[in-house]
């Protein structure tokens, strides 16, 4: 198996409900499914929620895990575990999977953009880079990809300046600066100018895409972020995270989910099909999940009035490409998704599997500036990595 070159993580921030995504329970009754249905997919034997019709059509491209499980029901601690594979506490802040993979693939990548890019906002609950330090911190793009131009502050030069003006003002800057030898200021300046002179900024130029392609992904934040992610994969960036807020549906759960799943369905199906068509899917892992799922039994009482709380005992994830086979279902929940019935998958196994298909040994050492003796992933529980769906 050839190692995957890139990873796209689509983080459904807040905890997406397993029932209205990849683990519908049409037989569980209205207290659980609100009378909504499951639909068949292109993958034999896999049904997903009726709100994901476009993903259903391309289900042969991805697999679904229905038995994700861990013990943390708070956003901060669950996010930390799902991102680092480590339990919180113990005095050390570990790096997120994106920082680890991008650091370890930085050498083979060698591009001008940082090897870890986040579209468009950081998670904010903890520092993604942990003890690896600023050097491996992600480029957080900011900006709004939905507009005609996706302005990534600092990468894409401000509008209205010609190349001539840009180079002239550098000339003036140089004549005004007292020469001060080689220091980190000078070295950083030279590196920054190299990025400016290359084609890194073009990566974010979504306006270069045909209008039909932009529409296919959906003119939404998640849609255009997925399109930008595909362009970053083409450029070679090893790890791209798309943070998608809006999934913490304590109240107005069904209204929220209907809207959010529609955007996600369009964006992720477009991404997978586009990667496939461009022959990039085999080299790119795509994964979709959040920190946990949601309470299976609908909370009809006030103040929730039809909401769902956090649920970490059993939730779902999508995984595709980069050495994972499509069309499979891993694990099984019980009748209501209250609990895992078969084949539990822990965050450390899930993340460890992604490392493995990227050619990184999860049980190997994690280089770090503090000289700590650590492995990429802590010792995995008995559930085991996702070898049954390795291609």
């Amino acid at each position: 198996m050839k190692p995957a070159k890139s990873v796209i993580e689509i983080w459904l921030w807040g905890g997406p409900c397993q029932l209205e995504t990849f683990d519908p329970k049409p037989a569980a009754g209205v207290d659980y499914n609100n009378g909504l249905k499951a639909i068949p997919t292109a993958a034999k034997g896999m049904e997903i929620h009726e709100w994901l019709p476009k993903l259903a059509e391309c289900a042969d491209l991805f697999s679904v895990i229905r038995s994700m499980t861990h013990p943390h029901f708070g956003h901060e601690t669950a996010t930390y575990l799902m991102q680092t594979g480590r339990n919180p506490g113990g005095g050390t802040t570990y790096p997120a999977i994106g920082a680890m993979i991008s650091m370890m693939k930085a050498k083979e990548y060698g591009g001008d953009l940082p090897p870890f890019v986040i579209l468009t906002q950081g998670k904010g609950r903890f520092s993604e880079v942990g003890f690896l330090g600023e050097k491996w911190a992600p480029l957080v793009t900011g900006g709004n990809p939905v507009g005609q131009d996706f302005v990534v502050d600092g990468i894409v030069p401000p509008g209205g300046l010609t190349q001539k003006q840009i180079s002239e003002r550098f000339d003036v800057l140089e004549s005004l600066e007292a020469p001060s030898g080689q220091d980190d200021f000078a070295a950083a300046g030279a590196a920054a100018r190299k990025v400016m002179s290359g084609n890194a900024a073009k990566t974010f130029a979504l306006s270069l895409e045909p209008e039909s392609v932009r529409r296919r992904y959906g003119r939404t934040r998640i849609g255009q972020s997925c399109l930008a992610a595909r362009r970053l994969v083409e450029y070679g960036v090893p790890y791209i995270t798309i943070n998608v807020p809006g999934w913490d549906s304590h109240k107005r759960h069904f209204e929220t989910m209907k809207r959010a799943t529609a955007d996600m369905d369009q964006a992720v199906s477009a991404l997978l099909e586009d990667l496939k068509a461009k022959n990039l899917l085999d080299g790119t892992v795509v994964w979709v999940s959040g920190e946990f799922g949601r309470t299976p039994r609908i909370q009809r009482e006030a103040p929730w009035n039809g909401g769902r709380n956090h649920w970490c005992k059993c939730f779902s994830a999508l995984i595709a490409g980069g050495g994972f086979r499509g069309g499979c279902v891993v694990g099984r929940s019980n009748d209501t998704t209250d609990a895992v019935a078969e084949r539990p998958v822990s965050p450390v196994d899930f993340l460890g599997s992604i490392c493995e298909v990227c050619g990184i040994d999860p049980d190997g050492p994690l280089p770090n500036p503090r000289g700590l003796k650590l492995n990429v992933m802590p010792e995995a529980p008995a559930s085991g990595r996702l070898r049954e769906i390795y291609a």
Partner: protein
Amino acid sequence: MNVSRRVFLGDGAAFSALCALAGGCASQNVSQKGTAAAGGGAASALENADGTATDSVMARRLYLDICGRIPTVEESLLYVKSSDPAKREHLVDRLLDSPGFADYWSMRYCDILRVKSEFPINLWPNAVYVYHRRIREFIAGDERWDAFAAALLGAQGSNFRVPEANFLRASAKRTPEGLSEVASLTFLGKATEEFADFFRRVSYKGTREWKEEIVWVEPGDGPSPSDFARLLSGRLEERFARAPVERVLHWMFGERAEGSARPAEDALVKTFRDSGYRLKPLVREVVLSAAYARGSVTGGFPRRRLDAEVLDDAICDITGATRDYQSIAPEPFTFLPPDRRSILIEDGSISNAFLLLFGRPARDSGELSERDNRVTPKQRLYLFNSGSLYSRLGRVVSRPNFQRMKTAEATNYLYRLFLGRSATKEEHKVVASSKIRMRDLAWCLVNTREFLYRC
């Protein structure tokens, strides 16, 4: 004297009046005796011929180191113009007694005391605010550090109601070993587990109020955190008195390096001890030392990149821009007033992309190395290329009075705003001959070492 925002945002008339006060600086270089070097003569504006810092550099240094902000045009002109032989002492005393000192040094103390509401410290928001307020009171009142240490180590009670009780909560590792590490790091300058026995009886319990927690010491025979506090004035006193001195020198002079100017440490320890372990006399002695007056070009004074928060405030002060602070972590969501200065943000969990980019510390460990003031390619790329920064620079040059200025006057205005000094003859020449647009000159100044560093 009031620190006037007006002078930063200032109109040209105020500026011209100030120039008259300074003896017509629009056409005249300010008291630089050194020879002009290459690079527009910037070196001569930074350092006198005898290797000491020029007045304008000294003013900028003192404002940055004591109050965490750049001086206004008015403040730096007044300092440069003053013929008072004791002007440095007078400015230092005024700044140490100003609220700005308490604001900035609270930020530093909150870094080492790990004041943040979320993971991995989890003080929670209410506790962060009471704790920050108490720390600021300690700095503003120049209280004794030994008494404060005893209060921090001895406090028991609610994290919302007893601010000092948060000291024993502010650790990512709430075990006797973890508490030993934070206590020794805070009071002795180095983390060690050897004092774990003093923290074995420390216990925590929740209440029915959301995120409230009680810190208490279980009854028993073993030593308590207060016993550790007593050691600080006993057998550990030498290290206890030295650690704050090392910290202050680290903040102002960075790592010890060969050939670089640095005040003698032992004398400072003596001053600190003799003053009753108070911070202000210590800082005062450092900034009035001969080492502190050295120039940064040949004089050996170490340059220090502005802290992330200070840089953000400087750009906002100069351009009149405001920040957009909101934070969805911690809950409940936080929205700060748009003119809130970044050095005043109490909670280490509230941040933004700019502060992260420029190495604001995570406040996870309390180690000084958490604050990363190195310059990285990403930072320079931002300063070179950011559209939002460029549009803010546009606000400076679009002020009506600025637009009426001739090139030389406008050049000086920008130099004073950004660098706290007027342009040298060579710099005027470069600007005039290049015909650069004033907005792009502002861009150049933001991208100089002199702006980005405390020189």
